[in-house]
């Protein structure tokens, strides 16, 4: 019977789990293997006798070198980092304050306003970039980091506001009332009591906002044009695909290195992040 149970556990638990992990990690494996594979192997046709797409015996760092030396990849990394950080900070600041107001202050149209903010989040970027392009042009900030720093909050603020609103609502309002009776003004109650408790939520919102800005493609593609202003996703795809020639090795190297900062951010805050998603405040 116990043997049977173990057998069942393999079928119903370990094998699906294994398939899931393989499915999730395979793209990363593919990026790594393509980055390290020499060009000669990369462009070998499938019916070649030594065709082995999943492994290489001749790893090389040529693609990484060419990425770092022949393109402006370092500049792109720096641009992306700067834009993502500033846009995240702006959005987090606005999102925390707006989320608090919507969750706590009783004012007319609070519910409606909350819904309206959410609806703006639902407007697709593929639609919104057209009017935004006009505005960018009018203010003459096209082809500068400001074009993205100021437009990313259009989808980051609604996102942060909603996430924070939910989080603030989960914090018992008695905590704040007690603080106000204890002698704190409303803003002091927020700064000393609510914000410290909301740190996991703020971190989650920040990580999400950072990832969204880091990966953002369409605004970056439209609003930036000179190579030295580009972000990683746009830079890699526009400079390493020339006409119909794909520099697969360098493309994958760019994608791989470009995903490292996000991975670091995630792993660094993972505990808080999970706490933020489950959204519990234990008294």
């Amino acid at each position, binding site marked *: 019977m116990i043997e049977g149970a173990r057998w069942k556990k393999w079928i119903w638990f370990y094998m699906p789990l294994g398939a899931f992990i393989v499915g999730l990690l395979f793209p990363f494996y593919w990026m790594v293997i393509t980055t390290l594979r020499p060009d000669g192997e990369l462009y070998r046709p499938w019916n070649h006798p030594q065709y082995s797409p999943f492994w290489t015996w001749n790893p090389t760092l040529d693609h990484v070198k060419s990425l770092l030396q022949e393109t402006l990849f370092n500049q792109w990394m720096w641009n992306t980092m700067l834009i993502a950080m500033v846009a995240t900070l702006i959005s987090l600041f606005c999102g925390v304050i707006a989320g608090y107001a919507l969750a706590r202050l009783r004012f007319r149209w609070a519910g409606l306003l909350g819904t309206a903010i959410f609806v703006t989040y639902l407007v697709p970027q593929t639609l919104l970039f057209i009017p935004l392009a006009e505005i960018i042009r009018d203010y003459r900030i096209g082809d500068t980091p400001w074009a993205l720093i100021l437009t990313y909050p259009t989808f980051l603020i609604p996102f942060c506001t909603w996430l924070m609103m939910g989080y603030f609502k989960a914090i018992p309002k008695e905590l704040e009332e007690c603080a*106000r009776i204890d*002698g704190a003004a409303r803003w002091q109650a927020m700064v000393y009591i609510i914000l410290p408790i909301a740190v996991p939520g703020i971190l989650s919102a920040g990580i999400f906002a950072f990832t969204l800005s880091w990966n953002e493609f369409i605004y970056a593609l439209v609003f930036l044009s000179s190579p030295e202003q580009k972000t990683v996703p746009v830079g890699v795809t526009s400079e390493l695909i020339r006409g119909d020639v794909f520099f697969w090795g360098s493309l994958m190297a760019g994608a791989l290195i470009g995903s490292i900062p996000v991975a670091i951010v995630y792993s660094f805050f993972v505990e808080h992040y999970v706490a933020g998603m489950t959204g519990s405040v234990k*008294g």
Partner: protein
Amino acid sequence: MAKVLLRDLNKKFDATHVVKDVNLEIHDHEFVVLVGPSGCGKTTTLRMVAGLEDITSGEISIDGRVVNDLAPMDRDIAMVFQNYALYPHMSVYQNMSFGLRMRKFEKPEIDKRVREAAEILGIQPLLERRPRQLSGGQRQRVALGRAIVRNPRVFLFDEPLSNLDAALRVQMRVELKRLHDRLETTAIYVTHDQVEAMTLGDRVVVMKDGVIQQQGAPLELYERPANRFVAGFIGSPAMNFVGVTLEWTDHALWARAPGVRVQVPAHKAEVLRQHSGKRVTLGVRPEALRIANGAEAPGSTFEATVDVVEPLGSEILLNVRAGESAIVARVDPATRVNPHESVRLAFDPAKVHFFDAATEASL
């Protein structure tokens, strides 16, 4: 040390009128308990005193100063919440000192007060712990400590014991009473538990549907309830109510219900005679009933059939049926009766209440 005055206090949430013309004077050092079923407006009243709810109309003053438009922090009050509302990211010490830090007290003074309060409550060993590391009773003590370090003019308690288990609640009730005797701070305490109200309050205010039904010393409410609601709410098990018709025959007033006929005691008869022929509600507490021993006056006993016997050790609760009415009697623990047996119950004529059937006011 303060006197709190509520005058014509009203509160409306949109269309719902939750507190209606409440007038209440709370004296210095007094411990007043607001009690009533949920939704009776007691908590809203307390929150208005705290400044957490706006006042729709009326006036609240503390020590003669109208506080209607004063922020909670400026009213010099302290409040203990039902869920304790301890700040989860702070240690017990930080929790207790928060109010003093906000009010810019000197460090040594803060330290002195926190340690004094901790000693009174017996929580000195817990000062460095976080709220999540404490048991329910300990959290309750910390919440109390946070209130007393401030040395406020008024304590407000919002059902502070209802999250504790039964044994702990009894213990904390005694501690609260001892604490109040020691600190002598004016206190307003909200609860739905009439036992807490009776044991803690110098004065008990019974509320229902936003209206004060009666206020007075605990025993006064118990012995002379102003209406049927108060009579039924105070006392456990609750008072028995029987709808009766009054009849004047044989130079005496009789109360009749199907299967029951008892004589109205002489001291009540004079007042009630004018209601002769009408329906009124008779109320008698379970503890005013006993098994008849044959020596009673003929009009003060009635026949009943035992339905359920609940032996509690110190007493026995008899659920009986008399005619169409279900009645609970609290009888001597030595009594031996079985379900479906017939018993004759006697009542103490001095402890019978009558209420108007329509207005429910005491007659």
